[in-house]
């Protein structure tokens, strides 16, 4: 969630279509199109599959981070344990899914797929992403852990329907919808592949908590001006605030209505948006759950933003600024309200 305002890239898979043998037959049967091994096009992608119809199509809306920068992305953002700790309390509510077939949408290099496969020995995963580079890493990591027999990495645009209907016991997507210009198409596609009463679980950033973060950071930067203080920490807070502003107010910002499509992180979601979306795609239920239930929510998230998303240290942040942040944890909202001011949350659409 670090601010990333630039970086537009489109890649094209090209080359001859080469059919290979049956990759993990029961998983490839999930597709309405035959799959081909991209290793036939480029040896780096061996073991990564794609629907034949996808060959040669433009891959829109993906930045270089996820293509040629994939290895650096993996080194920086591999967090199997952390993602599993967030997802599993929700996932384990669905025992059918834990021993069935699931689709991981926008799986990247496997932050969700790898720990789920490792934890649930009867689980099979169709792991899809737009980036063959990230999927090649997923394949490498799954092979290293003897998990590849239950995993099918498929390079595919989540917004196109290559799947058969009603075969999946769950669809999961970790931090994927907010990268997509039209999340409704992905959720609609998820509804189509799910068996009745099965869940599509997405972990996503929400506007409510981010709006409060922006409020805090803006207040801190205004106070810094009054105190005559400046420096990288305040510059960083301004950049984070601007990112939150653009992602929540793009419709009211004339400069951003077009440029917004080129952002990597596009959305901060609202409850209302997901409720409307659930209604539009015919979900029987929409449930929203916050992921971080902690009394020091805003202090903790500020620490993460400074040190994990930014190149800063905690003691770069002056004491008077921490006092402002602490007030948002203790003086303005109840703990119950902080559960509604979601920074990162799960939305579960039930078919």
């Amino acid at each position, binding site marked *: 969630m670090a601010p990333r305002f630039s970086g537009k890239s489109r890649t094209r898979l090209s080359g001859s279509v080469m059919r290979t043998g049956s990759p993990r037959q029961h998983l490839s049967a999930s597709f309405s199109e035959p799959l081909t091994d991209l290793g036939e096009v480029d040896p780096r992608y061996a073991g990564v599959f794609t629907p034949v119809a996808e060959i040669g199509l433009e891959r829109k809306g993906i930045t270089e981070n996820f293509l040629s920068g994939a290895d650096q992305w993996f080194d920086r953002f591999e967090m199997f344990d952390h993602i599993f700790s967030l997802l599993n309390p929700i996932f384990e509510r669905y025992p059918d899914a834990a021993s069935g077939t699931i689709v991981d949408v926008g799986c990247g290099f496997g932050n969700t797929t790898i720990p789920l496969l490792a934890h649930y020995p009867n689980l099979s995963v169709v792991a899809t992403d737009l980036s063959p580079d990230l999927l090649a890493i997923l394949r490498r990591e799954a092979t290293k852990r003897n998990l590849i027999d239950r995993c099918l990495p498929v390079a595919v645009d989540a917004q196109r329907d290559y799947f058969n209907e009603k075969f999946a016991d769950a669809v999961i997507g970790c931090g994927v919808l907010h990268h997509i210009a039209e999340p409704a198409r992905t959720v609609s596609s998820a509804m189509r592949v799910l068996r009745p009463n099965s869940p599509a679980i997405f972990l996503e950033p929400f506007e409510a908590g981010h709006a409060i973060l922006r409020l805090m950071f803006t207040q801190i930067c205004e106070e810094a001006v009054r105190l005559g203080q400046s420096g990288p920490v305040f510059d960083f807070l301004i950049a984070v605030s601007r990112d939150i502003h653009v992602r929540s107010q793009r419709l009211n910002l004339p400069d951003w209505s077009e440029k917004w499509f080129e952002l990597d992180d596009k959305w901060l979601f609202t409850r*209302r948006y997901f409720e409307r979306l659930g209604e539009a795609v015919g979900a029987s239920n929409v449930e929203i759950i916050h992921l971080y239930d902690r009394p020091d929510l805003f202090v903790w998230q500020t620490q993460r933003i400074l040190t994990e998303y930014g190149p800063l240290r905690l003691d770069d942040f002056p004491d008077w600024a921490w006092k402002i942040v602490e007030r948002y944890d203790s003086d303005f909202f109840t703990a119950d*309200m902080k559960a509604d001011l979601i920074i990162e949350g799960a939305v579960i659409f039930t078919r």
Partner: protein
Amino acid sequence: MFVHPLLDLGEAEDPAFRGVLSPQPEVGATREGVNDAFLGQAEDYYKKYQGFDYWRSLIAAAAQRVGANDPRLIVEFGCGFGNSTLPMLDLFPNASVVATDISPNLLSILHRLLESRGMTGRCIAVAMDAHKSYIVPGIADFVVGSAILHHLSEPCEFVAEAMRVLKPGGSAVFFEPFEAGLAILRLACLEVVAEAARAKQRGPYVDFAANISKMLEPQILRRVPNWRDLDDKWAFPRSVLQGIADATNTELIVYPLHDNKAQFRRHFTYMIEAYGGLKREDVPAWVWAPFDRFDNDTFSPEMLTDLPIEGCVIFRKKDA
């Protein structure tokens, strides 16, 4: 419809309560958790807070939302002098209403209004504690408790009772204050006070903003030792309502009561004029700034619908 015989309080307690009924065990009971505004001062309360048209529009919208087009039996909790009761009798011509409240004083005003409209045949006014199971289970098509939940220290127990009274698939509808919008309103007021201190500004609007933030604090944060004695006990976070829905195995529907565009400026305007005796045109621009910021900049228009100051809360009982 009641598990105990109903007695006329005009005979059993006080002639002033003629026509107000009560389950036998409630006769002569101390009315707990209700302050004198609703008892001895009931007539003043009635004169000040009549809002039949307002409540009519809220109930019509909520009923439409849950498809309660032609309920035959409505149970109302906390009906007071009938702000919602009379509009419901008009909106639903085939309905009978069991209108309950803890205050026989307010109910005797309702009984008077029913008599003057010739509607006593369709509505009974019953003095009872809403937490207690006096009504036969599974009889109501629709339950209404206009603004009762935020006065209760144990709203979950009460919602469970409302669900007991409802038929499967029926809905209980409430209109309540929300923490989300009120906490942001309080933040704006605190910002006015902070800016006044920085700029050495003074004035009645600064004092008023300070008073509003002070007044809202116990209702929002719920930390004061005498919290149970407060009249307005809750500004509900959605998560608390969801917890009640989970505990009572019901479906929760929440939506804002008002257009959320410019809601913080509008609500502050209402408060300074209704309670502060101030005029909006006298308020300087810098005082409006934080309200406008929250209305127009901090949150997206869609986010504001998740931050209601007041909202409709519906618990729908699952089908059998």
